[in-house]
């Protein structure tokens, strides 16, 4: 049975812990808002980029550009996006559970985030490079990493490049997701174009001209012009698309990290507060018990004197 003084000390220490986790929760919450905005605001851009690539569609046969063509290699490259710091709940361990399933003898890794690097080193996986970025990375910084991957791919060192990252769904849920970025799969983009919002026709046009527009819209895929040339567009658009995808997934990873940390710290704070309540109850019980005992002592002593 701990003494009341010991219990008091415990309450104090739990209170300190709660204060720290509360502070970390606040910090994570403010970073989370920033990271979520960054991740979400680029999604419209990404959607349009997708649809532009889908427009290229039939031009982009596998032999039209090396980035569309699967090289002769039996290895695959996985980019593992994790966090630099811990204390973010099950985010990293969920991710690593997926990462562990790749065949170690044919998989190379490129990692961003210290936790991922440590994990791969512990397992003795083949880690080719490790990139670290600041909390809000710029497009240019991320470009270095995607360039490295494109070069490996063009040198036929790997047959495919995929990214494994915690996809940001909302504050409460992040899902480990594997997305292939190379070779670029134009076919997988096609469905995106169909539901792409066709803005309502200009209100000033008359119904007949609208009809004309509708008719001409149906023949667009055949009549697209490319300036300066289809090849030049492919040469610029495809690498750019890869860079941007990598960038966007990194932003998503950051948003996931801060969301997961915020939730984890909130849980920790709640638990600590619950613990304080429990121990305080225990403390009060003990205090009352000792008062009762003292009273008993006093009354017995008085009785004895009478």
């Amino acid at each position, binding site marked *: 049975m701990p003494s009341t003084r010991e219990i008091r000390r415990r309450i104090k220490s739990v209170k300190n812990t709660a204060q720290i986790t509360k502070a970390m929760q606040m910090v994570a919450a403010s970073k989370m808002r920033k990271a979520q905005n960054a991740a979400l605001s680029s999604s419209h*851009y990404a959607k*349009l980029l997708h649809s532009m690539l889908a427009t290229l569609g039939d031009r982009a046969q596998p032999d039209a550009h090396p980035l569309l063509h699967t090289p002769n290699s039996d290895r695959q490259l996985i980019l593992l996006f994790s966090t630099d710091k811990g204390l973010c709940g099950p985010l990293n361990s969920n991710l690593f559970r997926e990462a562990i399933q790749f065949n170690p003898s044919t998989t190379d890794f490129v990692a961003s985030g210290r936790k991922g690097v440590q994990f791969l080193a512990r397992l003795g996986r083949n880690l080719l490079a490790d990139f670290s970025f600041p909390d809000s990375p710029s497009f240019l910084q991320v470009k270095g990493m995607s360039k490295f991957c494109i070069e490996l791919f063009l040198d036929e060192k790997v047959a495919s490049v995929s990214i494994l990252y915690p996809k940001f769904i909302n504050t409460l849920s992040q899902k480990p997701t594997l997305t292939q970025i190379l070779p670029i799969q134009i076919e997988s983009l096609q469905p995106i174009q169909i539901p792409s919002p066709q803005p309502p026709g200009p*209100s*000033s046009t008359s119904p007949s001209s609208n009809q004309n527009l509708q008719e001409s819209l149906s023949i667009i895929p055949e009549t697209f*012009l490319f*300036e300066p040339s289809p090849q030049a567009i492919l040469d610029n658009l495809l690498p750019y698309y890869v860079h941007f995808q990598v960038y966007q997934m990194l932003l998503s990873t950051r948003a996931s990290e801060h969301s997961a940390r915020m939730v984890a710290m909130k849980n920790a704070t709640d638990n600590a507060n619950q613990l304080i309540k429990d121990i305080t109850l225990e403390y009060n019980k003990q205090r009352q018990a000792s008062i009762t005992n003292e009273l008993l002592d006093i009354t017995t002593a008085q009785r004895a004197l009478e």
Partner: protein
Amino acid sequence: MPTIHLEIVTPEHVAYEDDVDSILLPTTDGEIAILPLHTPLLTQVIPGELVVSKNGQNLYLAIGEGFAEITQTNVRVLADMALQQAEIDEDAVQIAIRKAEESLSREQLAGEQLAAVQATLQKSLAQLKVKRRRNNN
């Protein structure tokens, strides 16, 4: 009179969206003017001045590098920068230009870095051009 729907998007936000009469767009092959019912075109945008005209009013935007997808009813411009006159800080742009020119003349830049500095310079010049235009008018 038919109009054409213009959308200018950067990774950060949708910079401009409206139904307009015509658009003047800087591309790798020179400036092109886009009117409604333009032939479908996919082209590359270079840093420069993008002019939107609507109801006889001209709007000038400084545009960065990117791509444009043009159909008969829609123009989508994806660029890494799109600023309206009010958003441009002339002093900051002047400083950026001076810095870029300095590092171009002084340092030995190669590959990626050189391209980055040159892109910054071109974008800054485009911003300056757009900003100055209003002052002349």
